């Protein structure tokens, strides 16, 4: 199981690239995609999901070119788009049965799989209600279930935890970790904590460019001694925001405790703090922007 992406690019208009020169070799595990809005994450995922044709480059799935011949990948692909809908008159079981048929599952496997997925996504009790009456979080869980119907070898999930409550988010993260043992999971999100707790590899994207491809621990190592905690009076905050990259601010009795990402100590009173992925993300993306 191997996904090889070489010089991938998508030009939407003349000289406007949604993604450019993207090269990656992906093995089983969770690949976390991080980047600001409009960075090119969804474009990248749609190309992997065989929906959007790239302008340049190749995508090989086990040495098959999926641009020329997408069906081998489609048979083993699970995809949860960022923005999707459901058929409002169907209930969850009927919708999943429909998607299972489209994905080519036989009826015997379908029933068992749907029962399992409804348990896993905590939808079993609402399974016979029309989807039109589902909340946003419940629809998202139906989306997750359909992505897992065919036991995909490549699972692509774009902002999967949007609309999920904290408990469902934890449940989904655990599920992803479990699944990633023997398949490729590509996860895109703005919620850094989702990636922090699950990803075995992180790719940072901005303005269609691949900024960093690294294991989370290596990213964190880069930040050793570059994250600082400093408590300042509230009134100083606006000025400091212009001066430093601030990755967090917590109100305290004696002012505001800032978390600052900086090569050198911002102030003699500032103390070194343990870095996290949010700090790394801000440093790399903001560094790129400035």
């Amino acid at each position, binding site marked *: 199981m191997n996904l090889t992406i070489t010089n991938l690019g998508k030009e939407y208009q003349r000289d406007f690239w949604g993604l450019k020169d993207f090269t990656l070799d992906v093995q089983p595990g969770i690949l976390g995609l991080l980047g600001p809005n409009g960075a090119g994450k969804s474009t990248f995922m*749609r190309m992997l*999901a*065989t*929906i*959007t*044709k790239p302008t340049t480059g190749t995508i090989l799935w086990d040495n098959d070119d999926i641009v020329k011949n997408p*069906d*081998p990948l*489609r*048979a*083993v*692909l699970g*995809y949860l*788009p960022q*923005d*999707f*809908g*459901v*058929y*409002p*008159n*169907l209930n969850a079981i*009927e919708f999943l*049965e*429909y*998607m*299972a*048929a*489209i*994905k*080519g*599952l*036989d*009826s015997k*496997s379908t029933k068992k*799989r749907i029962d399992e*997925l409804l*348990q*896993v996504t*905590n939808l079993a*009790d*609402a399974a*016979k*209600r*029309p989807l*039109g*009456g589902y909340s946003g979080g419940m629809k998202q869980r139906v*989306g997750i279930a*359909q992505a*897992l119907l*065919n*036991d995909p070898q490549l699972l692509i999930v774009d902002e999967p935890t949007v609309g999920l*409550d904290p*408990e469902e988010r*934890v*449940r989904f993260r*655990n*599920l992803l970790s*479990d*699944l990633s043992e023997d398949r490729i999971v590509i996860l895109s999100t703005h919620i850094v904590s989702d990636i922090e707790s699950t990803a075995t590899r992180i790719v940072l994207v901005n303005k269609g460019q691949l900024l960093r491809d690294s294991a989370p621990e290596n990213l964190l190592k880069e930040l050793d001694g570059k994250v600082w905690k400093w408590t300042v009076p509230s009134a100083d905050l606006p000025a400091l925001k212009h001066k430093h990259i601030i990755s967090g601010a917590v109100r305290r009795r004696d002012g505001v405790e800032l978390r600052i990402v900086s090569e050198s100590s911002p102030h003699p009173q500032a103390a070194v703090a343990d870095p996290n992925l949010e700090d790394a993300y801000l440093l790399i993306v903001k560094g790129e922007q400035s």
Partner: protein
Amino acid sequence: MKTLRIFYHLARADLYERVRRYSFLIMLGLSAFLGYQTAIGNLTIRLDTYRGEFNSAWVGSMVALIASFFFGWFGFYLVKGSVMHDRKSGVGQIMATTPITRPLYTFGKWASNMAVFMAMLLILAIASIGIQLLAGENTNIDLIALFAPFLFVTIPLLAFVSAIAVLFETIGFLQGGLGNIIYFFLFIFIIPLGMSLEDPALEPLGFSLLENSMAKVVTAQFPSYQGGFVLGAAPGVITDTFVWSGIDWTPSIIAARFSFFGIGAIIALLAALFFDRFDPSRRKIKIAKKRKKDDIHQSPSEEIKLSEPVRAVRLLPLNTDVRHPSFFPVFRAEIKLLLKGQRWLWCAIAIGLIIASLLSPSDITRSIILPMAWIWPILLWSSLGNREIRHNVSQMVFSSPSPVWRHILAQWSAGFMLAIMVASGTILRLGLDGDLSGLLMLLSGAIFIPSLAIVSGVWSNGSKLFEILYVLIWYLGPMNRIPALDFIGSTPESQPEVFMLASVLLLALAIAGRARQVKNG
């Protein structure tokens, strides 16, 4: 002042949003096409075998009446959809949080609908100058005589139609396909009703008003004239022409015509009463009721589950090969999806039509009951080819194996099966009568309907195009016995092979359209 400002910006933004859409180009194209057809003489007016000299009054009135007829009938479908667009785009939810009132919103939409019509009408009005000059019978351009029919006949009608479009959009059951079909027949029935009014100026289309004036001139000049007024593609020999200098637009006529603005305003106000102000709770009453009923039998799992600790979840491996997906499960799923959500009354009427077609004599079955049976599922067929886009499921479907051939053919087969199902009584009837040619014709119809549905759905990304096209073909063909459009075979001159060939082409176009959708993501 503030209200006027809101009204202006609401109508302006709505107009900008529409004129920048691809569909607006189609509207302008339609106007240009009508102008061209009039210029080359394919669309015209005649009174029995007489027509007017191509002076400004005649050309202006002819083009204005053609615009009234086509924009009044089909323009409704082009302008309808603005409220739905606000609903779907989510802009409506934002608007609902502003101080905008319901009447202001519906009036804004009414004005915007009219503005769209005005743009289309402007093209025809300008084209009418060219038509008069091109004809060369009278090159003296009298702008008042030329444009007055547009101003006093067409524009008031379009104000009326614009308001009806807003009203339809605010009433739940008229928003979708059912509303489209109801309007189609409403328009057909409104013409003769309007023509029987005492004051011809109050007839919405303005036909009576202009016809009466023209007929007076013809009668005076040609005493043998016995009446008869034809508008549209009017083949027939023109034996003579007459000079008609137009209508004397008296204040009472103008007032009567402009009363349609008043009627439009009342309709827009009425629409405000029905408008839900994008409050989903008003639309989801039925769902909520059903949910409540379900909850009696089901435990309120959400709350209980949320308080449980997070369990570790595992999925078992799936031991099935999906590398060569088969056709039949998709076909079965499509049939299920097509029929899902139909009320018992819908099924009862469909079964009633099947039984009636079996028990009635063959000629009644073919000429009346089968056409009824094949119009009844129109809203089911109209979902073919577009429901993936409409319900935003396309990314999931298009990233599945064989999204083009397998899926389109499964949808088509489901549509075909539906046609066969509702025609099953007729099939038995014809079979018992040994009417093989009737069976062949029926088969060609059953093939034609889903082909037309799927190609319309795929290329328009919506259900409206099929609903309009199909009703039009159904009305002209099977109901009015025009052989070239009779896909049911209610006339002996019907040609099943033509519809079969057309179906193959339509299906090929649908497949090409879906391949394009999949390619473009």
